[in-house]
């Protein structure tokens, strides 16, 4: 036997949407009407069963990305035009770059308008004028080319996209991504810092990128860049640790000549002449056509080693 009037209100009762007096009437009704009581019980059963399905959580990285994006995109609180300008890295970088280019050309001898006596520096020489701004040539170009469309074109784009992948400074983030694309952006950000001479930031970023499960070629490249950054900071002890690790773990690394050479230089700097000698000797044995690059240093290492032994 159906109970049409009550039947309509079962859902309201179940989800507590009845007025108090109506609810009381229904409570009384359930005592007398077995049909409605059973119907309610069965609907409650479904709702209860559904509640057991709950408590699913997205991965921590998802929270991290969304919040980082919101942070990036938050409308800026307005300050003076000067502070607004100063705290925007892209315009500052452009202005600095333009000034550097202007200074470079200002210092070049002007070509003679009357003859061919004036000499314009060849591109190689001109680029050397930038050496103080760029500590070393960028090595990312030696890495495997990433898939088309994966790399952003603008510096600000790099910064913006990588921040989604990095641990943010408010402790919301969890362990960084396991996605290699995130690592790629982190590498790009590290390179950006490196090229701007912000070596400590570069080291921090490369270190984080290494936790993001980059592929093997990126891992070895990252370690090389990390070692290079340490060396630029005169932290040869850290540099050699990373370089030794590359030699052990990535014996087929494509720029192993650079690894041996840098390790040799660092050990020489650390007065660990035996290890310097080993690295230079490895360089020569594996890259005999390039031995002229290190032969003098090898001799130096051997000489100092003999001196040490003599004492």
């Amino acid at each position: 036997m159906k109970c049409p009037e009550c039947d309509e209100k079962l859902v309201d009762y179940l989800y507590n949407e009845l007025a108090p007096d109506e609810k009381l009437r229904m409570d009384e009704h359930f005592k007398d009407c077995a049909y409605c009581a059973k119907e309610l019980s069965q609907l409650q059963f479904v709702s209860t069963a559904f509640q057991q399905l709950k408590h699913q959580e997205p991965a921590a990285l998802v929270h991290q990305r969304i919040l980082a994006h919101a942070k990036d995109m938050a409308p800026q609180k307005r300050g003076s035009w000067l502070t607004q300008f100063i705290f925007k890295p892209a315009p500052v970088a452009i202005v600095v770059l333009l000034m550097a280019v202007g200074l470079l050309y200002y210092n070049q001898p002007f070509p003679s308008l009357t003859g061919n006596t004036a000499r314009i520096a060849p591109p190689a020489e001109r680029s050397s004028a930038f050496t103080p701004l760029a500590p070393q040539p960028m090595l990312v170009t030696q890495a495997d080319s990433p898939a088309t469309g994966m790399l952003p074109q603008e510096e600000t784009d790099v910064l913006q996209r990588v921040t989604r992948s990095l641990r943010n400074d408010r402790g919301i983030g969890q362990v960084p991504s396991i996605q290699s694309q995130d690592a790629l952006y982190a590498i790009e950000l590290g390179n950006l810092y490196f090229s701007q001479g912000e070596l400590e930031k570069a080291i921090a970023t490369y270190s984080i990128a290494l936790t993001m499960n980059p592929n093997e070629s990126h891992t070895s490249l990252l370690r090389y860049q990390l070692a290079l950054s340490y060396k630029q900071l005169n932290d040869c002890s850290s540099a050699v640790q990373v370089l030794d690790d590359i030699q052990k773990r990535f014996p087929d690394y494509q720029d192993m000549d650079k690894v041996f050479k840098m390790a040799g230089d660092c050990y020489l700097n650390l007065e660990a002449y035996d290890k310097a000698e080993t690295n230079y000797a490895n360089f020569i044995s594996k890259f005999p056509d390039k031995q002229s690059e290190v032969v003098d240093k090898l001799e130096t290492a051997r000489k100092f080693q003999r001196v040490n032994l003599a004492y």
Partner: protein
Amino acid sequence: MLLYQKGDERAFEVLYWRHQRGIFNFISHFIGESGNQAEELLQDVFLKVVKASKRYEPSAKFTTWLYQIARNGCIDHFRKMKHRKTTSLAQPIDSEEEMVLESTIAGTHPSPEKAARISEVSLVLEEAIAALPEDQKEVFLMREDLNLSFAEISELIGCPVNTAKSRMRYALEHLRKTLKREGITKSEVIEGEVSRM
């Protein structure tokens, strides 16, 4: 939301942590999976919120606006999936999801037999929800996952309140019949919940 419009990043965090779980549950139940696709949809929802924040006007209730974005995202996803015909919502959920369900109930340390049965109940219910007609499913999930009143649901989906209630009733009936057909009893469900607490 108004604070976020003015540049207060923390305001967005507060909103996010308040609503993300309900939205994620709604999405994962709606599309029938709680993995990458649900996570992507969750991201899409909140990225849309961020993007549209400048246009947000306090005349619209924030939750209504947010849930509308979530609903539209799910419907779009559903259409795309139907178009591609790559995944059937009637298919059993994969082993990864089973693990999620088991871990959901984990912490109770039920016996292996009971755990298996609870998992089975969850699986049946997940499939039954996935098989619900879209209009019933959205009402059911808005009520159960988002805890919206029928008035709010009717406003969101643009139908009379009584229609929303009817759809809810049909959804509950459909799920009840499925559970009964699969031999799942009320005592099992209640026991599962009690032991979970």
